[in-house]
């Protein structure tokens, strides 16, 4: 186990460098001259003055070979300097740390909803196995898997914002504005949690130690809270990590629909505006965050009881 964990941590270094490499490629391989774009943003009425263009080209170091440019950018990143936005001139790192809070808050709200929905429905589904309720819940889950999150979001906006007027449809003014996007994110990511909880509970219920506990005379409630819950906690936590990854990915679309000032909204507009320093920095940070969460999941997974892994395997 130790060996696996150390191996994963060592693998982190080349992975992060590869991500940096991919993120940096955006500016280098994009068609067009970045200096021209920067010049246009700095001085919209400046026209095309070759001297000014040469100045900006030198400022960005565009004449250097690829590896030198990459090295300069990467050493900057390591020391916390992500460069400055073409469009606004603000430091990218500052923008990032201002916006990451919203994305994390949204993801955590989503996680909260998906845990509540997943554990409750999974428990009900397992408790009433093969009844009409179980079948209905399972059918709902498989239908939900085929509904795109942005459609769900628009549907919820229509019902709760434009009709009932409970929440605002766009923008962020108070933490209340996170409820609706969080609910959408949680709902569209809860199917796996429901199935995991159901499968794990059923598998545990059929196992030897539960039988023994029953023979010993423990009530079903005692068995559930003392034994089963204890054993399925770790798979649930592990899947929570996996969900967090897909939620950070999914928040990109949700933020755009609800107009939340998170990194997803900013990244999409930066790419549209060819604001390379922002796109590069944000993508790199995105990748690194995901890599670290994945590392954490992998390590956590090593601690999951091998007997419980079977039920977790299908979902994680």
């Amino acid at each position, binding site marked *: 186990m130790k060996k696996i964990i150390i191996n994963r941590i060592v*693998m982190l270094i*080349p*992975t992060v460098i*590869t*991500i940096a490499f*991919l*993120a940096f*490629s*955006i500016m280098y*391989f*994009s*068609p067009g001259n970045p200096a021209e774009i920067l010049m246009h943003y700095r001085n919209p009425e400046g026209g095309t003055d070759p001297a000014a263009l040469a100045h900006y080209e030198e400022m960005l170091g565009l004449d250097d070979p690829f590896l030198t440019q990459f090295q300069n950018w990467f050493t900057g990143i390591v020391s916390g300097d992500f460069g400055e936005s073409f469009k606004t001139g603000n430091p990218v790192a500052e923008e990032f740390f201002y916006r990451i809070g919203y994305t994390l808050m949204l993801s955590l709200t989503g996680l909260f909803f998906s845990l509540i929905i997943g554990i409750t429905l999974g428990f009900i589904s397992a408790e009433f*196995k093969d009844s009409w309720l179980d079948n209905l819940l399972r059918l709902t889950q*498989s*239908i939900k*898997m*085929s*509904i*795109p*999150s*942005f*459609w769900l979001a*628009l*549907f919820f*906006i*229509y019902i709760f914002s*434009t009709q009932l007027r409970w929440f605002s*449809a766009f923008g962020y003014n108070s933490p209340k504005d996170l409820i609706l996007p969080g609910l959408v994110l949680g709902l569209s990511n809860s199917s796996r949690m429901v199935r995991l909880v159901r*499968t794990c509970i*059923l*598998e545990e219920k059929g196992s030897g130690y539960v039988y023994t506990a029953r023979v010993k005379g423990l009530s079903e409630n005692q068995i559930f809270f003392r034994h089963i819950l204890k054993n399925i906690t770790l798979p649930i936590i592990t899947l929570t990590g996996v969900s967090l*990854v*897909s939620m*950070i*990915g*999914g928040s*990109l*679309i949700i933020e*755009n*629909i609800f107009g939340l000032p998170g990194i997803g909204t900013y*990244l*999409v507009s930066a*790419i*549209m505006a060819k604001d390379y320093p922002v*796109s590069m920095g944000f*993508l790199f940070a*995105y*990748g690194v965050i*995901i*890599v670290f969460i*994945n590392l954490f999941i992998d390590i956590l997974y090593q601690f999951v009881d091998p007997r419980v892994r*079977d039920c977790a395997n*299908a979902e994680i």
Partner: protein
Amino acid sequence: MRKFKLKTKKQHQQLIWLWWGLLALLLVLIIFAPVIFPESNTIDYARQLQKPSLQHWFGTDEFGRDLLSRVFNGMRTSLLYSLIIEAIALGIGLMVGLVSGYMGGRIDGFFSYIMNVFQAFPTTVAAIALIAVLGTSDLTLIVVLSVMGWVAYARIVRSETLIFKERDFVLGARASGANSVYILGKHICPNVLLPVLPLATLMIGHGIMAIASLSFLGFGVQPPNAEIGLMLKDSAMFINRAPWLLVGPGLVLAMVVALINALGDAIRDKLDPQQQMVEL
């Protein structure tokens, strides 16, 4: 008790036939969309943002185009692109998986590393990064999603190859002097294709969803072409005036994806009854 069970089983069978009938109907409508719904691009400002009616089942959009026609023509594009994407992804995944699993050693180590790096990115984020470089076009969309999609296939093919390369018929072929390319092509490839089939079916649905998501953000299919994500993006602007525009596209997309997923599940159950037992 026994009677009751028999009845439900028969009902279950009927339900399954209903599903497949629905899938077949939708597929026919999608494949022959240009013939059945030829007027998907006819602009008529006299009938802007109309409510669903007998002439226009899903209503009309801001240019007065019939939404039902656009939905099925759009689904046709999505399905076609998704099939191309899966074919490319499957091709790359098959090659990498076969070579990686059969050769082992350093080659395997190298490809496994590449696969890990690819999996480190969430698909949407990686896709957007690539689109930033390549620019938005339909071709980019296909390239990007194929590049992101091969890893899942490669993993399965690799693990299956590891199993099959120790089997007697492969060892026998090797003993009789067959070279690696022949063994991979003739003996291992046909055997590893079968376990990939359920995944490939599911991935078609995934592909359609991914195309819709990227188009919704403005990175995928470009107007005036019809596509579900794009249609929903446009409809979202009229959410107060014409909320019914959201219903049709989403419903058809969800139905098609759900039916394709069900097909994938059915194939998996057929191929691997063991898995079905574990899932309870």
